[in-house]
């Protein structure tokens, strides 16, 4: 007699947290990655890139697993589309970090002195933003328990707002660095200009996806 059992399917929310753990693993490597790149230690860049690739691959497997276990007949307490968007946003962060490693390994560039400080500042800012987004996902269990209301919901709401502000600030920083970069077009060659700009854009992308996580979680609250 298995009637009652077949009603309870595997929850997709736990794997979602496992997924964000892998994403967080990628994010935690961003600062070491840039440290290695700026000090010209290209062997280390290669090493860290391998680590990131592994974590991104693990995240992909978890993502596919989640998608496979969500057939039509499963009912979630949130909009299924919102759930999928959340998963995509999480995965996009991991992808963006991997893209950073690809760009870095295309060419060994010496980062100009004038850009170093603001670049590392942007890096740290983006990493903080991404970590905040990851922390939100770890609150999901309590959010479910409190039925999407109460103190948990307020916490999520607050962090989502902070993420929005954080992303806006990252945009501003990104703009300023890019402006500085292009003002140095006489000192840098085309490849360096292009690739450095790509790095800056990708960093901005990580902040964008982090904000997206906050926005989607907010949708969970309202539905």
């Amino acid at each position, binding site marked *: *007699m*298995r*009637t*009652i*059992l*077949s*009603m*309870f*399917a*595997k*929850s*997709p*929310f736990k794997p979602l947290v496992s997924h964000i753990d892998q994403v967080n693993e990628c994010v935690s490597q961003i600062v070491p990655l840039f440290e290695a790149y700026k000090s010209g230690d290209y062997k280390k860049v290669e090493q860290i890139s391998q680590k990131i690739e592994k974590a991104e691959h693990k995240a992909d497997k978890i993502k596919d697993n989640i998608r496979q276990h969500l057939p039509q*007949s*499963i*009912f*979630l*307490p*949130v909009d299924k589309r919102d759930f999928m968007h959340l998963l995509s946003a999480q995965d996009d962060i991991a992808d963006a970090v991997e893209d950073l490693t690809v760009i870095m390994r295309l060419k060994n560039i010496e980062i100009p002195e004038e850009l170093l400080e603001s670049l590392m500042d942007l890096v740290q800012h983006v990493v903080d933003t991404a970590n905040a987004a990851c922390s939100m996902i770890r609150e999901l269990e*309590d959010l*479910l*328990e*409190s*039925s*999407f*209301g*109460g*103190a*948990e*919901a307020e*916490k999520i709401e607050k962090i989502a707002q902070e993420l929005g502000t954080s992303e806006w600030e990252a945009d501003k920083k990104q703009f300023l660095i890019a402006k500085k970069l292009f003002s140095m077009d006489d000192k840098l060659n085309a490849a360096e200009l292009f690739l450095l700009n790509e790095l800056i854009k990708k960093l901005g992308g990580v902040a964008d996806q982090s904000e997206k996580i906050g926005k989607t979680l907010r949708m969970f609250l309202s539905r």
Partner: protein
Amino acid sequence: MDLNTFLLVFAITACVYMACNIGANDVANAMGTSVGSGSLTFKQAIVVAAVAEFAGAYFVGGHVSDTIRKGMLDPSIFADVPIHLVYGMIGALVASAVWLNIASYLGWPVSTTHSIVGAVVGFGVMAGGLDAVSWGRVGKVVMSWVISPVMGGLCAYILFRFISHQIFRRRNPLLYAKWLLPYMVFMVCVILANAMFYKGLKNLHLDLSFVEAMAYAFVVGVIGFYFSKILVKKVPDVPKREIHRQLESTENIFKYLQILTAFYIAFAHGSNDVANAVGPLAAVVSILKNGSVAMKVEMPSWILAMGGACIVFGLLVWGRRVMETIGSKITEITPSRGFCATFGAATIVLICSKMGLPVSTTHTLVGSVIGVGFARGLPTLNLGIIQEIVMSWLATVPFTAILSAIIFKILLITLG
């Protein structure tokens, strides 16, 4: 051995077999949410179920049993040859038992209630054509099969929305949980006590009026209220900021409530399902004793007691493993959600028992769990089960009806 004794023994054997089956399979489903949420270990659940099932069967099992034994067929078709009704009832028991075994073997979730109702209608039609069945009554029963899961769902939905609003969405859920618990304990105690006292104690020759029953029930409720207040004081407070620990402690408070509702649903299940085994037997006993199909006598309490005891026996001997399996596999339900689902289902089933309507406790519980899911109480819910349930209805009733009719015919031909 003369024919009558042989038939009586045959009927009792079939009844015991059905009752053991009910205990072995059905009870585990009813207790599933309580064990799965961690409120009871499977061993504790068995003890609670054993006591509650018997109590439910003995005190409130008479109404549904009456429906099964005399409420569905027109007695006049058997008036000339009452012994045929005996053949039919035996056929019904055997057919149901066979179907349960086949379904068990194939792993299908089927309802003992639907089996016996289908079987009784089956031999009735074989005996006296379509006019032999009281279609009005049977129609009501079939409608209750659809309405009970829906009502169970509605009840659970409303209850969960209530505690979600009053407790979980507060900044200090533990505080509100502690405050609300005694009131909910009071409510469950009053309902249970009332169900037992009002019309339930006839077997002990104590016929209380509604007001008297309510009064005693109120007393039981008040005792429960103060007892739970004492229990609640023992739970340590958690600072408002630590929301995670607060939620954990809140769920622990609901564990107390779940123990109570586990008893409640086992009681309701016993009160409704014992009839599936003893209803036909009661008909057989009545006819063999009085020689007529007019069953004016009340359900003999020894039959209810026997049915209840057999359910408990089936539970203890075979139901243990099923209970352990179901309990260990359900992990997504928490005590608060389990409480809402169990309470909703138990209330609807008990109401149906009082109204003499045989319903499936398992299906009603499924409805309740879905109700909690729709109220956003569960992380995930597989709605595919609804299809499984409908399929099981479509398979069960025709199969038992036809098999019962065949067995009836065989008995008719061989025994005359």
